């Protein structure tokens, strides 16, 4: 029995590839405030159009970490959080990371006008009847989900986070690096 335990410890500490795999499967245990582990399995697919009329399907984002963000223009914390999401998108540019925003149950004109008024360079998908939001069941608005490159939902974050701050950026880069190590 002692021998088996010793072997397990040796494997964990001296075979980093296996250990990092365990880390990915379990998720990173230390998460910044406001982010929750949310291991619910495969992300539910959807097809929606954005404010430019382009069609997007979630499964096409596989291979990237996806920051899936649900919001509405009438929701105060959603409005406040937009500049932070812009910072997040800027700081993660060039990484295998995508920001996908979904507006909940508002029309194209409202979304277009709102995004234009707050000086951000962000597009949004339009969940005009709110059906996709109902399927995803965020805890509230705004809510963001983090989906891994295999298309599995891993984390959920309730609104109002300073996404551009080092604590969140470092956390997200750690997620990406953990994946990169696994692929080597």
């Amino acid at each position, binding site marked *: 029995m002692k021998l088996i335990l010793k072997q397990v410890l040796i494997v964990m500490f001296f075979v980093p590839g296996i250990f990092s795999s365990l880390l990915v499967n379990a998720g990173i245990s230390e998460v910044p405030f406001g982010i929750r582990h949310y291991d619910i399995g495969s992300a539910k697919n959807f097809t929606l159009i954005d404010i430019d009329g382009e069609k997007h399907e979630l499964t096409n984002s596989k291979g990237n970490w996806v920051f899936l963000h649900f919001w*509405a223009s*009438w929701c105060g914390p959603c409005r406040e959080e937009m500049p932070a999401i812009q910072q997040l998108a800027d700081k993660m540019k060039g990484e295998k990371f995508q920001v996908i925003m979904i507006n*909940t*149950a508002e029309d194209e004109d409202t979304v277009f006008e709102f995004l234009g008024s707050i000086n951000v360079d962000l597009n949004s998908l339009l969940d005009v009847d*709110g059906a996709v939001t109902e399927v995803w069941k965020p805890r509230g*608005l705004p809510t963001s989900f983090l989906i891994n490159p295999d298309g599995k939902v891993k984390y959920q974050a*309730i609104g109002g986070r300073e996404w551009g701050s080092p604590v969140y950026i470092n956390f997200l880069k750690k997620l990406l690096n953990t994946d990169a190590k696994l692929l080597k």
Partner: protein
Amino acid sequence: MLKIITLMLVVTNIQAAEPVVVKTPDMELGFTPRTANQMGSFYEARGFPKAMRDVLKQQCFITVGIENTSNKKIWLDMSNWEITAGGKPIKREHRNYWKQRWQNMGIPLSKQSTFRWTLIPEMLDYLPGEREGGNILLPFTDKPISITATFATGENKQGEKIIITIDELFCAEDKE
């Protein structure tokens, strides 16, 4: 066997339709009554149909904010809230009631969805530091409202219960 200790807090003598904030060592609760005009304006600006707004104008809106200031998990379950007006129980309609009502009225799905997002969740767990809330809707009354809100705590809801009672909260009315 885990002993369940109950923390009770009663707030009384609040005489107006004004925001009420209750702070305990474990959580902070805010109750803000909204007038029919306040809510009507909000929903009108979101393009809600008149028929829907007319129904909503008959309701007593109270915006509830809940923050977990403890270091343990706290559970909201609206079925554990008891609400009375003038000493008699009044019914807070479940979100499923509203869903059915809007469907029967043929309200567009987008408006139904937006409405649901303005309601307080029926059940929610709060990690330390988390804050969430939403509106509760009651039949309008000019009588003083009492709310006894019971929250379970701990990972498996086995911790001490928190019971907070608010007395003499009033529906907000528009001034003539």
